[in-house]
């Protein structure tokens, strides 16, 4: 059909005129713009009734009270709980991000068993039966002691259940992570002869000397410390920060004493010396102290401010001034525990710092140092052990270490200290060290641990020398992870029994360090469960029941809830109603004993690994509150707040002084190769005037391995590709899209370098714990 051209013109013009005079073009123009305002791929959150539910955040040991805002029962926001003694409405960025942990599609969504490089979904019954079967087998072989468990802490009923399982099976191999809390506990036991943990009444102290403790980088109970720190101005309290680098805490402090890294203990003893020689100490308090004379002589001879000034780089006059201010303060407080206090550190460093507290006598008083006796509020029914269990239980832990004594015996300086061993330190204390455990596994031909359970811990990320740790974990025939996430350790597991997140479960909580009161709290589920996960307590109870025999009868409860009610006892009603019970500390009735004999063998603190000749620099891990560096990896929100001087694209950025940069031949923004005796990494360089020359700072909390796992197969054989069956497409910088597997968290995974790849463990002879606080290193342009 051929249209005549003039007709065609008529047709076109007619159509144009007809369309123009109809509402079509105008409505379409308007509608297409409205369409762009209502794009179907931009989510529209449902509205509804707003409610708030309170619970406790357990992402870190701070345990803040939180209020979860919900819309028609859907959790949408986390806020700090007003009036809660820990945080009074304040909240850290990780707590706020809690819902990102909850709804994270990269969570382990159901129990899984690894076969080759494929994870297969199994039912909870199958998973429990599998684990219980292995335990039974070990019991039958009389090898119950080869069952081990790692948990971040041994506080609370959930950790208690794991420990109980081990005990009832017949294993002492229950390990917790080595943090400053352990060091303080050991120190209190050694100096004061008490079985107690340390607490610090920062909020009421008017003069704090902190030896590298990052109060505002996440040390102790972070939000409590933020509040205490910011009220300093009104309280006219002073903070002196001893740190080689202008950390946020140092910047916030009234005085910054940039002592060379590793000389903090010297500085502490130097201040002791100045206090003693100036007769500024609390003579009344010290009067009965053991070996005080010896200690005084020792510090005056070896740690006079003038001498210390040379090692630390701090002026003697400054040392004396601080000493005098500290001693004259109403409630002075000296604190040790570097950064977030996530590593044990050198016990002698803690001792040197604590000597300051002992000299002022501000112990167990408001604004001072507190020794808080462990109050076991949980009353467990006695457990049953059959012969096999009893026999196995008699064997000492695989990672057993001797501590405390080694520091004293065989010391050349023993002469000045009393030769009579005091009542408090007359025994070799044996404890179990996780670091040691992995060392033993690596050293043995066949792993002495047959089955490892990992609950609420990520040793393959948080322990020093992760390469060795991973090798050890790989050597263990059967690893069970209870993680909610495909973290660095879960990736190496054989079975994952995914736990609820803290928002999905109830548990009892003992708030710990840096609080001046005892708080027992009760968290309750405020959401979910989003996936087919279980309460970790329920998982253990189920395993125990499946193991049968005395193990099963040691777990008489139907489920965790019943267990919790029974072991908390009378206060359960109050707890579940009020949410928490707080009680002020009460000083112990008996006067506190002080024993200075620990310094008899003092030869400085645990040295760094590596020799100065080939590694001229000191590599120090640095903490920032914006990056989680313990069990939990940072959330997308948290990573978003991280500055580009810490993480740039996928590279860790190290911090050095411009002077160091000149020496090494790198400039700002350059790629550099950092080498330590343990490993090497390619990083980028950031120049910062606030760091001491010859020190290299590297941020903690990066370098989570992105899972190298292959497919995840559902029971029906289909591959798991996200919650709704659709592979989530994430657009990344540069505009390219790529498919993200269900268990890969690319918001933190694969970004940067894990500090612990570069730092090896160094056993502290005084505590037996891993006391590495840095390592020697060199850098070159890459």
């Amino acid at each position, binding site marked *: 059909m051929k249209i005549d051209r003039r007709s065609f013109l008529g047709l076109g013009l007619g159509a144009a005129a007809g369309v123009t005079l109809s509402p079509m073009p105008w409505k379409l123009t308007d509608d297409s713009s409205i369409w762009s305002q209502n794009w179907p791929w931009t989510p529209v959150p449902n509205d509804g009734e707003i409610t708030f539910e309170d619970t406790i955040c357990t992402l870190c040991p701070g345990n803040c009270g939180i209020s979860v805002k919900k819309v028609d029962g859907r959790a949408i926001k986390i806020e700090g709980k007003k009036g809660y003694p820990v945080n009074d409405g304040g909240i850290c*960025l990780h707590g706020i991000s809690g819902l990102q942990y909850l709804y994270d599609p990269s969570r382990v969504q159901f129990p899984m068993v690894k076969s080759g490089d494929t994870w297969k979904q199994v039912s909870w019954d199958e998973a429990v039966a599998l684990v219980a079967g292995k335990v039974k087998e070990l019991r039958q072989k009389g090898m119950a002691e080869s069952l081990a468990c790692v948990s971040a802490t041994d506080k609370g009923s959930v950790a208690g259940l794991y420990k109980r399982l081990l005990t009832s099976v017949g294993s002492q191999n229950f390990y917790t992570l080595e943090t400053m809390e352990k060091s303080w506990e050991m120190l209190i036991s050694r100096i004061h002869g008490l079985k107690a943990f340390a607490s610090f009444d920062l909020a009421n102290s008017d003069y704090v000397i902190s030896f590298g403790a990052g109060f505002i980088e996440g040390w102790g109970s972070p939000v409590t410390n933020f509040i205490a720190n910011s009220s300093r101005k009104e309280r006219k309290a002073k903070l002196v920060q001893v740190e080689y680098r202008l950390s946020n805490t140092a910047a916030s402090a009234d005085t910054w004493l940039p002592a060379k890294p590793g000389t903090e203990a010297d500085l502490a003893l130097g201040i002791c010396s100045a206090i003693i020689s100036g007769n500024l100490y609390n003579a009344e308090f010290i009067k009965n102290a053991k070996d005080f004379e010896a200690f005084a002589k020792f510090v005056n001879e070896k740690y006079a401010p003038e001498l210390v000034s040379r090692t630390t780089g701090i002026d003697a006059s400054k040392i004396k001034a601080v000493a005098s201010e500290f001693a004259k303060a109403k409630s002075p407080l000296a604190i040790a525990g570097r950064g977030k206090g996530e590593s044990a550190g050198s016990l002698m460093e803690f001792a040197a710092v604590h000597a300051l507290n002992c000299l002022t006598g501000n112990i167990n008083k408001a604004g001072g140092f507190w020794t808080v006796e462990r109050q076991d509020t949980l009353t467990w029914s006695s457990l049953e052990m059959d012969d096999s269990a009893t026999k196995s239980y008699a064997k000492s832990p695989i990672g057993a270490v001797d501590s405390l004594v080694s520091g004293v015996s065989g010391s050349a300086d023993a002469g000045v200290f009393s030769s009579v061993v005091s009542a408090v330190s007359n025994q070799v204390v044996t404890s179990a060290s996780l670091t040691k455990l992995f060392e033993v596994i690596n050293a043995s031909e066949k792993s002495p641990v047959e089955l490892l359970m990992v609950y609420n811990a990520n040793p393959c990320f948080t322990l020093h020398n992760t390469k060795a740790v991973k090798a050890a974990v790989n050597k263990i025939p059967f690893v069970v992870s209870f993680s909610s996430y495909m973290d660095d350790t879960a990736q190496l597991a054989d079975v994952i029994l995914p736990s609820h997140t803290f928002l999905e479960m109830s548990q009892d909580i003992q708030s710990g360090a840096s609080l001046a009161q005892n708080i027992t709290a009760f968290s309750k589920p405020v959401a979910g469960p989003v996936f087919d996960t279980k309460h970790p307590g329920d998982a253990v109870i189920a395993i125990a029941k499946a193991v049968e025999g005395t193990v099963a009868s040691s777990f008489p409860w139907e489920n965790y809830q019943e267990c919790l009610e029974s072991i908390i006892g009378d206060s359960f009603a109050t707890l579940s109603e009020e949410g928490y019970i707080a009680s002020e500390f009460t000083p112990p009735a008996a006067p506190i004993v002080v024993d200075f004999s620990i310094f008899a063998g003092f030869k400085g603190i645990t040295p760094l690994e590596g020799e100065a000749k080939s590694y001229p620099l000191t590599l120090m891990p640095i903490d920032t509150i914006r990056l989680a560096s313990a069990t939990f990896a940072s959330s997308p929100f948290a990573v978003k707040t991280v500055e580009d001087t810490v993480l740039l694209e996928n590279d860790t950025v190290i911090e050095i002084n411009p002077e160091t940069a000149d020496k090494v031949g790198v400039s700002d923004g350059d790629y550099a190769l950092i080498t330590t005796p343990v490993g090497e990494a390619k990083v980028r360089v950031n120049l910062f005037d606030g760091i001491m020359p010859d020190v290299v700072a590297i941020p903690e909390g990066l370098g989570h391995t992105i899972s190298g796992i292959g497919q995840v197969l559902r029971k029906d054989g289909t591959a798991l590709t996200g919650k709704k069956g659709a592979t989530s497409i994430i657009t990344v910088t540069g505009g390219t899209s790529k498919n993200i597997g269900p268990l890969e968290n690319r918001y933190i995974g694969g970004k940067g370098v894990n500090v612990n790849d570069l730092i090896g463990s160094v056993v502290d002879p005084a505590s037996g714990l891993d006391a590495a606080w840095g390592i020697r290193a060199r850098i070159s342009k890459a």
Partner: protein
Amino acid sequence: MTQDNHGKAYKFGMVIDLDKCTGCGSCMVACMSENNVPFKEDETNKKDSITWMKVFKLTNGKPFPDTDICYMPRPCMHCGGKGDHGHSPCVSVCPATATDYGYDTGIVSQIYTRCFGCRYCMGACPYHARYFNWWDPKWPDGMEEYLSPSVSPRMRGVVEKCSFCYHRYQAARDRAYHEERRDNIEEGEYQTACTQACPAGAITFGDLNNPEHEVSKLVKPDTHQCGKPRNPKAFRLLERLQTNPKVYYISEREWVRKAGDNYRDGEWEKSK
């Protein structure tokens, strides 16, 4: 729509104590979480990372060990503009009236669905408080469950910025209306998410027109000089540009106060 704001209207403002701020980032995340701010896999290019509340890190530029740093949280300044008449740098340039000045609140408000993405307002804002949605906002599968219905998620191609959590003001007003108090809102009833979250208590929020409110007490704004602080320790960012922000900073440290604006050689000493 020109009303002057010295009448009964509110003039919401914020005071941030820089000596208390620890740079912890709670305000940033509280803001993201409250306002459905999206995130990408790589957020390290800070020039295209949406952070309504951004914490700048300032240094005094001195060598070790005299170095000092200061963290400066920067929400939208909600500028009153020259003469405090509501002609904020961004509002006056928006060609589609997608952003405007609320004379009853002093808040620079915005319709995301009106914005067509010309980005002129971003060029106009000296504080970099405005952010463009270069990408479609995408949440990992299932994570969109936490999105709040109070703030509409923005689409690709539009500019967004801090709203002083205006929806919280709306919620407070809803309650006030419901309780027949009309729009009589108590100081505590309307607080922004960052103010509420800040663990250091460094942020104070309230009505600058109300002398009873903490913000007024802290900075003592001079109404005759477009709200210039009378507290000598307080300052506003880029005061000399006459943008007249409603966000004030307080610091005891002289170098910090000096960093709040530009001074030619010797000018600062003279201005003191």
